[in-house]
């Protein structure tokens, strides 16, 4: 059955959108971005806290009420050995999908007069396959709940600096999990999977490519597994100065801190 036109869909509290952020919390996240003076884990936590704040700005109404236009999951992987857990803390601890209203009702604290929700971790290995498996279950349950089939398809954004430690030699299990997520759909299309690979090294950056033949085998895999940007994402990417065209994929290799924040903005539907 053909999908409805996504460009005609307005994200509202009646038709919210699910965002799932998969956050690498493995040991290598202790490394610094190229010229930055923070570990990558801190930059990522800051970027996630910032994007939650930006989403809040889009959802606040004239009477200062937060409209539930977005429901958000933050899944951390690698905080403990081979484990995946919800990254929400404080009063949201152990919850998986949280409405933007609840997010603003229960922040973890404030930094520089802005609320924060998650803290940085850089501890163990990189069980990315497990994280995608978890995202699949969250998205499937979310789509099957209430009227969510009439909503924007879920957007899954994976932020990593390395290679999955649970994907096997041929990456078969990881491929399988990501393809399962991409096969999930609402009446407005398939779920989007976007991947950003951040790096400590000042290597060549690949920003939203439409084809990729990198020497990095895992980089090629993440590119293959990423969804193409939709019309709206292309527009925002152009606005941020990226050279994109139809067919560009939601994938960044060797991204820096600024790419990370832009990437999160591009991946968050308007």
């Amino acid at each position: 059955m053909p999908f409805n036109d996504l460009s005609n869909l307005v994200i509202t509290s009646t038709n919210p959108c699910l965002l799932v952020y998969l956050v690498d919390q493995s040991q290598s996240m202790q490394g610094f971005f190229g010229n930055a003076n923070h570990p990558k884990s801190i930059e990522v936590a800051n970027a996630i806290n910032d994007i939650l704040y930006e989403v809040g700005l889009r959802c606040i109404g004239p009477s200062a009420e937060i409209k539930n236009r977005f429901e958000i999951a933050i899944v951390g992987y690698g905080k403990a050995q081979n484990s995946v857990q919800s990254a929400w803390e404080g009063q949201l601890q152990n919850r998986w999908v949280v409405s933007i209203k609840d997010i603003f009702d229960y922040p973890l604290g404030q930094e520089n007069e802005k609320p924060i929700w998650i803290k940085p971790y850089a501890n163990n290995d990189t069980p990315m396959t497990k994280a995608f498996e978890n995202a699949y279950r969250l998205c499937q349950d979310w789509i099957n709940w209430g009227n969510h089939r009439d909503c924007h398809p879920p957007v899954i954004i994976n932020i990593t600096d390395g290679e999955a430690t649970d994907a096997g030699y041929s990456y078969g299990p990881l491929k399988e999990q990501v393809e399962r997520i991409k096969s999930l759909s609402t009446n407005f299309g398939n779920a989007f999977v976007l991947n950003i690979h951040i790096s400590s090294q000042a290597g060549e950056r690949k920003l939203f490519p439409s084809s990729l033949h990198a020497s990095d085998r895992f980089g090629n895999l993440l590119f293959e597994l990423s969804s193409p940007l939709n019309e709206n994402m292309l527009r925002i990417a152009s606005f941020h100065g990226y050279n994109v065209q139809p067919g560009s994929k939601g994938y960044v290799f060797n991204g820096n801190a600024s790419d990370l924040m832009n990437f999160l903005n591009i991946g968050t539907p308007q």
Partner: protein
Amino acid sequence: MKSKIFHTHKKSSILYKHIQDKFCVNGKISCIAIADGTTQSFRSEYWSELLVTEFCQNPTFNSSEFIIWAKHLAEKIQSTNPKFSENPAIASLERRKFNNGSTSTFMGIQFVSSTAFNFISVGDCNLFLIRNSGEISTFPFDSIDGLNENSSFLNTVNLLNETPSPIEFYNKEINFEKGDEIILCTDAISRLFLSDRKWIKEIVSLDNFENFIERIEELWAANLLEEDDITIIYLSDLNSRSIDIIPPADFSFPSPPPPPPPIPPIGGEGENNNLIFTSMDIQTIMHNFSCIQKDFSEIKKRQKLHENLLLVISGLLTLILVVLFFQVYMDTEPISDSSSTSKSEKNLPFEKTFESGAGKK
């Protein structure tokens, strides 16, 4: 001039009081203004209302004078001390929005003679002039692309900057003839009219507010019209002074059905169940269950391993005992066989073994 005003808020605003489009008609000086406050900016409805009401008191069509005038109004807005939410996280959002200022587009006209009016606009409002001949002229945009490309607006903070970002004004004197009709529109309805001019006649010919709302809802449902606040000021008989269809201030759309709670309650209706679980609670419980299940299976595995180890150890012990027994037995038997021993000797096998060993030497 005979005016018809069509004005309604987007459905998601629910109540008319939340409309961010504002208009003002001052018949005394034949001045009309519309403004569209942007949803994302801080309480833009106050800003758009201030713009139209002040403009209709004291209109100006010179862009430099307009900026000075608007700057004065912006000072009023930014010098207020708004009360923010008690929730610190929400207050932080409000502060950020306040610091970014209130934003609105604007269009104003004033009739200067029986054949001409002055026009000024900033942003994506549009004017349609239907000539007596049926020809339709549009100002300032004649296409949807042109309208979409214009991102200029009046922002309170920008106006107060020492060097504000450039504001793109459109201003001119427009001539008209007897029998011409003028329509002032905010952006969403302008896009509809620019997409196909047939909509202009259809909408402005509606004769009451109920029919207008019905038609707009149909257009929203068919995705032909963007769901946004709508303002249309239609001026037909430019010598008359009547105004029709002032939208009722108490108008509201029915509240949309409550969104499915992110947290679905469990337990039938009417069931006095104090334990309300949410879908996320259930997810958490399921997750915890699966963890417990994993832990149990791990414990079972270990138990099985321990059992097997115990079995192996006891088997080994038994084997050792049997071997020892046989060794002793085998070592003692030949002695017993080779010499006739008394009952008491048989009861001392080790001693006997020693003796027998010594004997072999």
